[in-house]
């Protein structure tokens, strides 16, 4: 059993078309005072017509170059809920596009906002089970292709983007200076699901929409977060013996400023955990984007991760991070 793994943030990319949210609201409003403040995003990023979840995932994977890790990868976990093909999933296509070894374990995960926490645990479990030594984890989505700009329940919130990380049981040789390796020991994990509430946030097949249509009842999702977060964090504390006040840094899914503020209150933190005002809700990449931004900061940290969304589901983990 591997108690800890090495984590290498490879890259984080956004869709190629930025859009000003205030202009979006002016065009499709009116909206009431305070709307922009409560949703929180000043800019969202749409993918171009030639961009897909696969192309964004590949862009993120090679952002730091690939020669230094390609031969090490023997597992791929790809997270998306907006793949262009129903089958095969993006993991196989990533293997081909990057020229990775044929002898490789590939896994496609249909998940959204909780994708990173869930897929990280899957990757670690693959490593613990001897199925892989080094896993390429990609998270990528093109949610802006799931709705019209006029659908203001969702259009001011979601951005297209992708992130990629390596998760390995070994310390990889010669990473570039742009990539800071971190050692992670998972102290606790917690996952709650309410599939009966699936209809409150879902992508449904729809004629004329290749990737489907996103529908969201924001109130229901918010209710779910409010009633579930204490159960999730209590379990984290029970498993780890750690008091949440000891967590040095929280990474929270950036659904909107409103929901992040509610999570801040539930966690009892004074830090501003809303970090994505300038790029939007990038779905499964929401936590990795924050990791990517922080990777050159202090390394010895107790990290907390919380994500919630499509399911409805909430996932959390506590991680002890060191640099060696």
């Amino acid at each position, binding site marked *: 059993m591997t108690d800890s793994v090495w984590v290498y943030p490879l890259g984080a990319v956004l869709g190629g078309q930025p859009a000003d949210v205030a202009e979006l609201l002016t065009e499709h409003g009116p909206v009431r005072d305070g709307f922009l403040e409560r949703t929180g995003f000043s800019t969202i990023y749409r993918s171009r017509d030639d961009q897909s979840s696969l192309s964004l995932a590949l862009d993120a994977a090679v952002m730091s170059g690939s020669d230094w890790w390609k031969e090490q990868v023997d597992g791929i976990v790809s997270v998306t809920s907006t793949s262009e093909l129903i089958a095969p999933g993006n993991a196989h296509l990533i293997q081909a596009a990057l020229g990775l070894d044929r002898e490789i374990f590939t896994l496609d995960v249909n998940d959204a906002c909780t994708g990173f926490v869930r897929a990280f645990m899957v990757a670690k479990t693959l490593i613990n089970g001897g199925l892989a030594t080094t896993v390429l984890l990609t998270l990528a989505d093109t949610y802006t292709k799931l709705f019209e700009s006029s659908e203001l329940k969702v259009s001011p919130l979601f951005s297209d983007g992708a992130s990629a990380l390596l998760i390995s049981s070994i310390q990889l040789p010669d990473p570039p200076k742009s990539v800071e390796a971190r050692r992670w020991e998972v102290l606790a994990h917690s996952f709650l699901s309410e599939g009966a509430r699936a209809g409150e946030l879902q992508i449904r097949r729809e004629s004329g929409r290749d990737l489907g249509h996103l529908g969201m009842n924001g109130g229901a999702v918010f209710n779910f977060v409010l009633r579930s977060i204490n159960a999730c964090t209590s379990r984290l504390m029970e498993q780890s013996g750690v008091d949440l006040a000891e967590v040095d840094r929280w990474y929270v899914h950036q659904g909107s400023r409103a*929901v992040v503020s509610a999570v801040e209150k539930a966690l009892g933190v004074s830090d501003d955990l809303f970090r994505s005002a300038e790029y939007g809700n990038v779905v499964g990449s929401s936590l990795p984007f924050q990791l990517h931004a922080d990777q050159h900061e202090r390394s010895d940290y107790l990290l907390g991760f919380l994500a919630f969304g499509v399911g409805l589901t909430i996932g959390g983990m506590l991680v002890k991070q060191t640099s060696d």
Partner: protein
Amino acid sequence: MNDASLKDLIDSALGGVTTAGRPSERTWDSLDQLEILEHLNDEFGDGVNEVEALNNFENLAELSTVLRAEGYLD
């Protein structure tokens, strides 16, 4: 909690009484709902967010009916 206290809670959640009137007396949008849900959670705890009917409400009459039926309102 009684009806008057609920109105005060909602007014507080939605920015207070202004020259435009009491927020508790108008129709609410989705962002208003989030504010109210958060204040209800502060007041009553996690259990109130288990109430399915609170996934959709637009005005005081609807909210009061639900809360009364669930025993949160006198």
